[in-house]
């Protein structure tokens, strides 16, 4: 595997920490090293055998189904939003390989901390789709991760969830188990100082966390060229001592290969990893956004040929695992699954205004009880239940 390993590898706690140990300055130039670019399955369906994570047939088909389901969910959400049944949300069209790839290697005990654009990954992690519908249509009940799913609620404030994810991993390291944490964010999030702090804390503590940056070229209307002044983001990890890699984020096998190595490192106590996944936001930033104002179709269109699902389908066809009809069947089954979830969602979607005070504290303080009573009598007066 080609994820670079930092030269200095002693554990932070292996010896008495010192300040400036060497009183003679090392006059050798510092070689910052190289960062590998990883792609397993290229646009033409060729596979790099040396890097192939070697999924078996049923795994390959499951990965495919998961990506298709993500897309089906995404497009249903869009319809529902246009029809007024859904609030503003952020489509993940074109990023399905990142979605599935980043959580594929995780166990139930591992943790995942999603961004607002991660519902594909959330479904894969075991969030019922009806809960995601609830979430994006403004019901509080959509927010908490389901029992048995060790996920954080999705993050709205860019970058604000990255440090807590590191904290979970720091807790894991202290409890000495073999679990790890994956935290996901965008290219824009890399500008938040808190994310740099997170890299540093993770590395200093040798916490088992994997940072996955989906570099999709844009942060709303801000292109990467105005977001940062390098040709890549992967070097940010190296700056803090993290093992880092740049992956083709539209290549599901590349994503899985990178995550396999990164999770192994985490589990083996080798510390955190930074994965820059290069992808593209094919759709709107959110349903409140109009990309035609700020970006040329000349830029987006070529990306259509890099579609992660089509590329992978072609590969499965080549391997004789999936026919054209088979692919169509997967798609229509996924649609049906989403529609069933929508039915369940419609049954349970119910605003619960009487509960808005209930979860702030573990034990509601009496002064807040007074406010709750005031609020409830307002609801009574308005005839709301």
């Amino acid at each position, binding site marked *: 595997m080609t994820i670079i390993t930092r030269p200095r590898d002693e554990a932070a706690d292996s010896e008495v920490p010192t300040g400036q140990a060497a009183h003679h300055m090392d006059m050798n130039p510092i070689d910052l090293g190289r960062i590998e670019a990883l792609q397993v399955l290229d646009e033409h369906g060729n596979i790099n055998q040396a890097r192939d994570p070697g999924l078996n047939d049923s795994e390959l088909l499951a990965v495919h189904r998961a990506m298709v389901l993500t897309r089906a969910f995404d497009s249903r959400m869009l319809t529902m939003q246009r029809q007024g049944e859904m609030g503003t949300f952020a489509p993940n069209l074109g990023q399905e390989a990142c979605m599935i790839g980043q959580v594929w290697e995780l166990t139930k005990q591992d943790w995942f901390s999603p961004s607002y654009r991660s519902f594909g990954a959330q479904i894969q992690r075991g969030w019922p789709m009806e809960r995601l519908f609830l979430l994006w249509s403004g019901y509080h009940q959509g927010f908490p991760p389901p029992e048995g799913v060790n996920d954080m609620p999705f993050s709205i404030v860019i970058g604000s969830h990255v440090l807590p994810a590191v904290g979970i991993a720091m807790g894991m390291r202290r409890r000495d188990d073999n679990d790890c944490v994956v935290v996901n964010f965008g290219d824009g999030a890399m500008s938040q100082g808190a994310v740099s702090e997170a890299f540093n804390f993770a590395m200093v503590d040798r916490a088992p966390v994997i940072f996955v940056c989906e570099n999709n070229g844009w*942060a709303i209307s801000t292109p990467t060229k105005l977001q940062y002044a390098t040709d890549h983001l992967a070097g940010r990890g190296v700056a803090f001592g993290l093992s880092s890699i740049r992956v083709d984020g539209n290549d599901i096998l590349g994503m899985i290969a990178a995550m396999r190595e990164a999770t192994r490192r985490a589990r083996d106590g080798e510390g955190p990893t930074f994965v820059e996944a290069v992808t593209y936001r094919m759709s709107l930033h959110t349903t409140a956004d109009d990309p035609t104002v700020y970006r040329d179709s000349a830029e987006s269109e070529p990306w259509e040929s890099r579609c992660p699902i089509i590329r992978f389908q072609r590969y499965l066809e080549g391997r004789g695992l999936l026919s054209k009809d088979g692919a169509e069947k997967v798609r229509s089954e996924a649609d049906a699954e989403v529609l069933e979830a929508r039915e369940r969602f419609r049954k349970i979607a119910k605003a619960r205004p009487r509960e*808005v005070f209930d979860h702030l504290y573990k034990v509601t303080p009496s002064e*807040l009880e007074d406010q709750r009573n005031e609020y409830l009598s307002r609801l009574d007066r308005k005839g709301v239940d």
Partner: protein
Amino acid sequence: MPQKTMVEALNLALDEAMSADESVLIMGQDVGVNGGVFRVTKGLHEQYGRDRVMDTPLAECGIIGTAVGMAVYGLKPVVEIQFSGFTMQAFDQIEQNMARLHNRTMGRFPMRMVLRTPYGGGIRAVEHHSESRETYWAHTPGLKVVIPSGPRNARALLAAAIDDPDPVIFYEPKAVYRAFREDVPEERETLPIGTSQVVREGKDLTLISYGAMMRPAREAMEDLIDEHGIDIELIDLLTISPMDGETLCKSVAKTGRCVIVHEGHRTCGIASEIIARINEGAFEYLEAPIKRLTGYDIPFPYFQTEQYFLPDADDIIESVRETMAWE
């Protein structure tokens, strides 16, 4: 006079300021080609170029921190933070530099800058997009805090804020952005910062509000006058800090009763400060406890329930009648 939404009125004020003064510049996320996520800076990028209408990296602390440096250098940055909830990311720069650099240097450096940001609920947004935390800024010495309630005063106050020699937090009620149009004069207009406006004189009860809550307050006022015969004096705070205590106390000294309405949380909210001032300045005239109708001390709820969190005209009417009934 042309009819404008608040968004258009703010855009006009920015355009006027930029064309009148080369040292005014705009910074923020997506304020350039995109014209801001609410389109308040629309068209300015084309007109004034990328160096004066700057799309910044996604870092609020970075935006405010560099704007502070520009102000020290003599420029007049007008910063947009996309939602007021994200000003938390820049709290340190606001509290430690923007609010204090003038004092720290005993006035050696100017600190002319405006932080514009949409605040408040009512647009069915996700968490962190509906905050009203003006208390944080009102409690921070060195800042001025301004909140307009309609297109016309928004334009006039933003012009005044950019003129102001001291740093201003300019909270824009996003629920009002496109809610209605108002006559906005073609010629430049300003309103004094630090002065509240008596919207209607009355003798029975002083109703105090600001920002987006002025709409239900007006609605309630009409109803209270027409249906209940209560002669309301309505005050639009406009500047939250420095607070125009004089206008407030004068009014309550006349009416003896008062209801205060805001979205922000109750504990240490703006209403508590108003009550403290009236206690100090018009105690002997008070005929009933002053009523606080405010956001509760819970996070702004998810949007299916936000309508019940926000005070509405009905709640205001109820509060006023309760306060009138007190003896």
